[in-house]
């Protein structure tokens, strides 16, 4: 039985399109106002700009040191995600293939940590981080993201590897591969779907994360996009033409990433949620 496209459906469709446009309005307003003069924003926030002010962006680009903060965000996100993928897939591999008391205890302990709110560990973490010289530098915060990212990633890998037939690995072992060879040559390629899911979940989280950079990155040279936006917005409070240009700059990279990777992102988010 094929669903007909009735007039009721047309009304519903129109209603949804209007709703969709309403959802887009806030972003639209940010982008058009980012091109206006300050007084024009105050008198007519909803209208199209009379003349496009690219100066706003030039000012913000420089004052926010956008290339530098963008680079920091990129470095932190990429290396954090790579580490999370490597350490948790390696651990999950042995935890699944060598079951026993030790593996069980390790898995459950790491799993149970997922529910602990960041605020609970925040203060002592800062003290530990100071002792290990992990404050105010990129390697430090990357190591912290490894720690915070491992529980969810390990859990997702663990569930996936349980479903991978062990025969392939056994065959490779008989052919003379050692455990490392099996892991790198046989298992990692098989893990690709779940690796994409985990990479996307963690990329979105780390790229957008604010609180951890806020407490461990103070100096200008290491700021990330959310942190620099926060500081910039605080300094230029109500200087809307600059604040909005800063927001538009902060939003563009992730929206572009989303539009290009849309299919993977939506699949990844769904898979991550359903298995978590």
């Amino acid at each position: 039985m094929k669903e007909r496209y009735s007039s009721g459906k047309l009304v519903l469709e129109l209603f949804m399109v209007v709703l969709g446009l309403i959802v887009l309005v806030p972003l639209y307003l940010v982008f058009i106002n980012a091109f206006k003069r300050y007084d024009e924003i105050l008198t007519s926030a909803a209208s199209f700009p009379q003349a496009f002010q690219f100066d706003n962006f030039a000012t913000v680009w420089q004052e926010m040191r956008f290339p530098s903060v963008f680079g920091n965000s990129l470095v932190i996100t990429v290396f954090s995600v790579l580490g999370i993928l490597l350490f948790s897939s390696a651990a999950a591999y042995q935890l699944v293939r060598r079951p026993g008391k030790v593996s069980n205890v390790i898995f459950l302990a790491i799993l149970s940590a997922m529910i602990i709110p960041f605020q609970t560990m925040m203060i002592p973490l800062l003290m530990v981080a100071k002792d290990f010289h992990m404050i105010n530098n990129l390697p430090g915060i990357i190591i912290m993201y490894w720690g915070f990212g491992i529980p969810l990633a390990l859990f997702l890998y663990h569930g996936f590897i349980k479903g991978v037939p062990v025969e392939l690995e056994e065959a490779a072992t008989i052919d003379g591969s050692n455990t490392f060879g099996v892991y790198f040559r046989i298992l990692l390629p098989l893990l690709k779907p779940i690796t994409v899911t985990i990479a996307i979940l963690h990329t979105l989280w780390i790229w957008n994360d604010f609180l951890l950079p806020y407490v461990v990155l103070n100096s200008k040279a290491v700021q990330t996009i959310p942190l620099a936006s926060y500081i910039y917005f605080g300094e230029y409070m109500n200087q809307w033409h600059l604040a909005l240009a800063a927001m538009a700059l902060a939003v563009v990279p992730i929206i572009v990433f989303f539009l290009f990777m849309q299919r993977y992102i939506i699949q990844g988010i769904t898979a991550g949620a359903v298995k978590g």
Partner: protein
Amino acid sequence: MTPTIKKRLVYATFVTPAVLLFALIIMLPFARAIVFSFQDWDGISSDIKWIGWENYTAIFQDTAYLKSFGFTLKYVAVSTLLVNLIGFSLAIVLNMKLKTKNALRTVFFMPHVIGTLIIGFIWQFIISQAFPQIAEWTGLHIFEVNWLSYPGYAFWALIMVSVWYNAGYFMVIYIAALQGISNELLEAAEIDGVNRWQKMWHIVLPLVRNAFTICLFLAITSGFKVFDLNLALTKGGPFGSTESLALHIYQDAFANNNYTLASTKAILFFIVLGSITLIQVFVMKRKEVEA
């Protein structure tokens, strides 16, 4: 080297990095926070006193803390209900054969990829600058006042933004669940003369129960941990009326340097959040089995 030792060494090589990172970044600070909750320390001096349960009795008399607890519970309840209700409704509609369904799914989901801090700032602009214009055009009084300056309105401003940000995310999870229902089952029901509401109530809802368990869990935990949005949109104001637990603990720790008391508040936060989500998942999982 005997084979057993070699095997153990290999096992250790694979597992140790993850365990070490977990211990250093999560377990050690968490254990330290528990210890802190039984101590009194200003964060600087070398003198750390043990004070037993005093911190715990003190936080129950801390009105700002209790107020932020109350706000957070109310925020979690209302936002969990609304984002799931709206997300599920969107999923139902966009699971039909509409011509624009793919584009609409993208649009509704898009806000979710932006960081919540930036979203708070975006909406601060929308509410303070664009709402007055809407009021001018439509004559609706509700858009005349600045929502961020009145406690009652500020709460709903946060809820509104949370719905804008989250509804599309929950929609995506519900759509995946709805697509898991076999068409034959629905067609068989139609042939048997089951009407639309019966179909929804007796077939669709029981089959997506698993998604409800997950979505409620996600909404509750993310609602409890809300921080960026409060900081960027309302700063906890006006008059501390929208200060979330996470924001309150942050302020207590770093604005007031109250390390031990803030740790105690965070431990209680963890216990409450842990128990609520455990109960929620346990109760809903049991129902799933029955269904």
